[in-house]
């Protein structure tokens, strides 16, 4: 039985189901929660970049008004480091020793009656240090290098031979800077212990991981921990790990015997919950004079922390990007005295694609070829690394449809050849193939006698539209009106789900929902299939389809019975089924499961005297497989485009030499686009439902950002003739 209503590409553009709650301020974000007797915790950060704590004098803080407790490594007691996760090791357990690995590292937590008292007392914790020299530069020879950190380095053919056979070789190095996730909602943890059970409300993108990690940190059985995160104030990846402050809040609650809330301050959001790490990438591309790639060699070096890891596969993106017989991609990390980086929207992909797509543009210039034509000629019609057909790929359609929407044919090839009044005009393009990701996931579906349904899974809504698309999907799979379906997310008591990350949530949860609903429909049918009074008597699952709040026999709409009727006659108030879905391996599928594809077209305008640079237009054409909700999907791409403009033109967390202190750790100083920086943005979807999963979707949470920065950089070259090989591109570089 397939319960999809049809291979429609675009789902209804419904408004957010939780929209009214959010705009009315009634969505319970963790920052808004309060419990009787709740205390407030404020973390104290290290003011050196490397060394040891030689002494802590907390006496002034402890005797300050309202202070209940000051936790340091001297009194925190042992905590376990949580086990390895699918994204690598867990953060080190906090306050376990005197070693300082980075500026801003939590060295104490002050717990007081009020937030103001805790904040004030936090300034009274006097920490003395033994300084060591902090290692802060990627190129510092003292920095330990991790090679092939994720086992994803790729190799095919013979790159040296490919380069030797090339008519043209470009060899370029690109630099990217530290960027910060900084969702609007500062990360917040509220912890309380009730009858030996640790209850946590938290800003997380991964309730299931937090559940197991917190249990491990406190050596508790899983049933003694609950994580609740029904609403999270954005993430961009910041909520993908179980951060030390989460553990510290739970510890503070255990120590004081009262509920405790900890809200990271805005400056702490720059050091305590990850960031996109700076990197240096070298690209070699070889091509014949007619524009056929002969070699791709991509080497990436990114920053990581001393005592922690992060997942940032960067060069990897080049392995499957183009049809080219010879390719080698290699990732390296340098261990530095910095706060640990972490996935930020499009981790690895955003930066890796930036370098690749700039290099492709540079190759096009060297070849004297239209960069669109160069990309079309090297389109990877099969997966170049796996040698399998793609589950779906509309890259060519993205490029061609985008060119048409954008008016690429108006582009004159010469740099500095286009103007609008006094402004230099440049057109730039980047192609994107976003890495596929999907993980094992479970969901639970319930129909009730009143004709409503409740479906849930422990995935999280971070503003991405998850509630809305899962309500739509469940309604479709059960044949109910969307108004009759509610969806639960973000609680660890729900069936386990992977992270809201890697652009994999919708396909993962959606596939599990598909399975849960399939089972539920089967269970409902089983109640009546042997009942001669039922119009569905004698039906097998293959004979029925869902619709109008019940089941009907295919081809005979008169033989229909509602869920309410079926459950009522069976004397059941509700019926529940659980489903789980695991992605098949490519070899089993006989095809390479594809992530989303996209083409990004950008027009920039540059003031030739003042270097002022603005993005005037951006067109994104995306193959995201089946789009469950056109409005949510378009919003994802628009939001990603704005993030990409920030990455391209504005965003850089600047740090001090010597300490690594982030010197612009406020949203007044770390600048992101404002409305005046955001141009007209056009989004279109192409492609077909993807056959690699039962619901036909591909992840689109990150592809909106990826490709914008290189399209800008390429447009800046076209406008000015200046090739800027670092981000962000600021006006001083164009003077």
């Amino acid at each position, binding site marked *: 039985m397939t319960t999809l209503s049809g291979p429609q590409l675009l789902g209804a553009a419904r408004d957010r189901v939780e929209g009214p709650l959010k705009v009315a301020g009634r969505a319970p974000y963790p920052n808004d929660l309060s419990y009787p007797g709740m205390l407030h915790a404020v973390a104290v*950060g290290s*003011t050196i970049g490397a060394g040891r704590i030689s002494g802590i004098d907390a006496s002034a803080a402890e005797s300050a008004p309202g202070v209940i407790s000051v936790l340091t490594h001297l009194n925190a007691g042992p905590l376990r480091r949580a086990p390895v996760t699918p994204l690598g090791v867990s953060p080190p357990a906090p306050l376990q020793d005197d070693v300082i690995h980075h500026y801003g590292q939590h060295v104490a937590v002050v717990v007081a009656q009020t*937030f*103001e008292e805790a*904040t*004030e007392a936090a*300034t009274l914790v006097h920490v003395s240090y033994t300084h060591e020299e902090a290692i802060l530069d990627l190129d510092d020879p003292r920095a330990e290098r991790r090679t092939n950190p994720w086992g994803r380095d790729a190799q095919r053919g013979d790159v040296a031979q490919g380069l030797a056979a090339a008519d043209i070789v470009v060899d370029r190095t690109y630099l990217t800077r530290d960027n910060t996730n900084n969702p609007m909602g500062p990360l917040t943890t509220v912890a309380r212990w009730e009858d030996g059970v640790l209850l946590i409300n938290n800003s997380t993108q991964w309730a299931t991981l937090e559940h197991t990690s917190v249990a491990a940190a406190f050596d508790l059985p899983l049933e003694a921990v609950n994580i609740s995160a029904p609403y999270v104030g954005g993430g961009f990846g910041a909520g993908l790990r179980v951060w030390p402050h989460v553990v510290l809040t739970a510890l503070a609650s255990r120590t004081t015997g009262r509920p405790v809330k900890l809200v990271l*301050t*805005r*400056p702490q959001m720059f050091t305590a919950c990850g960031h996109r790490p700076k990197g240096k990438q070298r690209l070699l591309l070889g091509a014949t004079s007619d524009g056929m790639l002969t070699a791709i060699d991509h080497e990436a070096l990114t920053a990581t922390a001393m005592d922690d890891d992060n997942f940032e596969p960067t060069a990897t993106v080049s392995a499957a990007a183009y049809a080219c017989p010879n390719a080698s991609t290699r990732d390296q990390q340098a261990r530095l005295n910095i706060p640990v980086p972490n996935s930020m929207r499009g981790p690895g992909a955003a930066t890796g694609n930036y370098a690749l797509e700039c290099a492709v543009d540079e190759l096009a210039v060297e070849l004297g070829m239209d960069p669109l034509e160069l990309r079309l000629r090297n389109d990877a019609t099969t997966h170049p690394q796996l040698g399998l057909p793609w589950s779906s790929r509309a890259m060519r359609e993205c490029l061609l449809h985008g060119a048409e929407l954008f008016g690429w044919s108006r582009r004159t090839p010469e740099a500095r050849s286009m103007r609008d009044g006094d402004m230099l005009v440049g057109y730039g393009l980047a192609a994107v193939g976003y890495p596929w990701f999907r993980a094992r996931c479970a969901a639970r579906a319930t129909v009730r006698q009143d004709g409503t349904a409740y479906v849930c899974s422990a995935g999280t809504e971070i503003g991405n539209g998850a509630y809305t698309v899962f309500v739509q999907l469940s309604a479709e799979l059960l044949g109910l009106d969307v108004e009759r379906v509610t969806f639960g997310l973000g609680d660890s008591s729900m069936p386990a789900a992977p992270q809201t990350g890697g652009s994999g949530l919708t396909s993962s949860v959606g596939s599990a929902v598909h399975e849960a609903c399939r089972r539920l429909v089967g269970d409902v049918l089983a109640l009546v299939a042997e009942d001669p009074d039922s119009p569905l008597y004698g039906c097998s699952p293959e004979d029925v389809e869902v619709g109008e709040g019940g089941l009907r026999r295919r081809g005979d709409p008169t033989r229909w019975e509602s869920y309410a009727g079926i459950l009522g006659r069976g004397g059941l108030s509700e019926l529940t089924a659980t489903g789980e879905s695991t992605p098949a391996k490519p070899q089993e599928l006989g095809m390479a499961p594809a992530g989303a594809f996209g083409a990004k077209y950008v027009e920039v305008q540059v003031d030739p*005297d*003042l*270097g*002022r640079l*603005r993005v005037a237009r951006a067109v994104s054409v995306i193959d995201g497989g089946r789009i469950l909700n056109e409005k949510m999907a378009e919003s994802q791409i628009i939001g990603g485009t704005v993030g990409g403009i920030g990455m391209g*033109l*504005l965003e850089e967390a*600047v*740090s*001090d*030499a*010597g300490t690594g*202190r982030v*010197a*612009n*750790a*406020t949203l*007044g*100083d770390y*600048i992101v*686009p*404002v*409305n*005046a*920086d955001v141009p007209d943005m056009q989004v279109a979807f192409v492609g077909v439902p993807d056959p690699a999963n039962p619901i036909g979707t591909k992840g689109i949470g990150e592809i909106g950002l990826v490709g914008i920065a290189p399209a800008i950089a390429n447009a800046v070259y076209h406008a000015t003739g200046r090739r800027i090989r670092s981000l962000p591109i*600021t*006006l*001083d570089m164009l*003077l």
Partner: protein
Amino acid sequence: MIVVQPFEYVRAGAVAEAIGEAGAVGSAAYLAGGTTQLDLMKDGVLRPSRLIDITRLPLGGIEHHEDRLVVGSLTTMEELAADSVVGRRLPFVREALLRSASVQLRNMATIGGNLLQRTRCRYFRDRTVATCNKRAPGSGCGAITGAHRTSAVLGTSPSCIATHASDLAVTLISLDATVHVIGAEGSRAVPLTGFYRVPGEDPSVENDLRPGELITAIEVPLLPPEARSHYLKVRDRASYEFALASAAVAVTMRGTRIEAARVALGGVATVPWRAVEAEAVLTGAEASVALFRTAAHAAVAGADPRPQNAFKVELAQRTLMRSLRSVTGVSS
């Protein structure tokens, strides 16, 4: 963030009362719009033991005279920007106001407070940084060896390179505005050109105000009706951002000859920077791009750039040249 340190709050009903309250304790501060004061208190940079709320004092409103305005110090930025005489006779003042901050902030921020706003330098504003001569005299300057892309290149000293952030003050200093203040020892008038202090050895002293003195009004001469003026602000993002460089220019022309010129720079100096050398080059000369270039050179004479902000010397000149081309209409 929340104001953390306990402080006394006093709402003054009269100017004399405000001054009296200010003199009664050592670390009192006046509170007007609060858009700088409260931020800095929340960050623990300013820790006054007493805040004297002056927002109820009769210091608002704009007096219109034939040749000048007298702007009450509590006039908000939006109110001044909306003034029709400002729009007609001081258009670059209006431009400077409307390119500052956001409308929400401009509805709160006062003109007196704008003149006294503190630098955005993060070494000043982050109290976890040990070195800042402005915040902790004698402790050193973190910006000189640290992140200083946005720091000043003019009016600096080895003790401080913090940029003055005001746009409005750049135009007002070019107009020879006068600050009226009142204190325990009476009232006085200070020309804005003599109001600000470059950092020298003690960057904690930023202006000529004596302890407890209160700005009551700013007297702003009007430009001649035939004058043309322009405030050009160049910044990293398109809005809601401080200047990397700005130029306030007002000229009176006879044909292509510049009869009178007023020039000031913002975003590049430790104080609103009146460019008298540039004015001297321009005054009485035939407008030309070559002349503008000479004037721009003169405006940045003595600049002391550092590696990350060296571009500002060039950017300031280009900004000024563009502004001059714009007001004179001469582009060759």
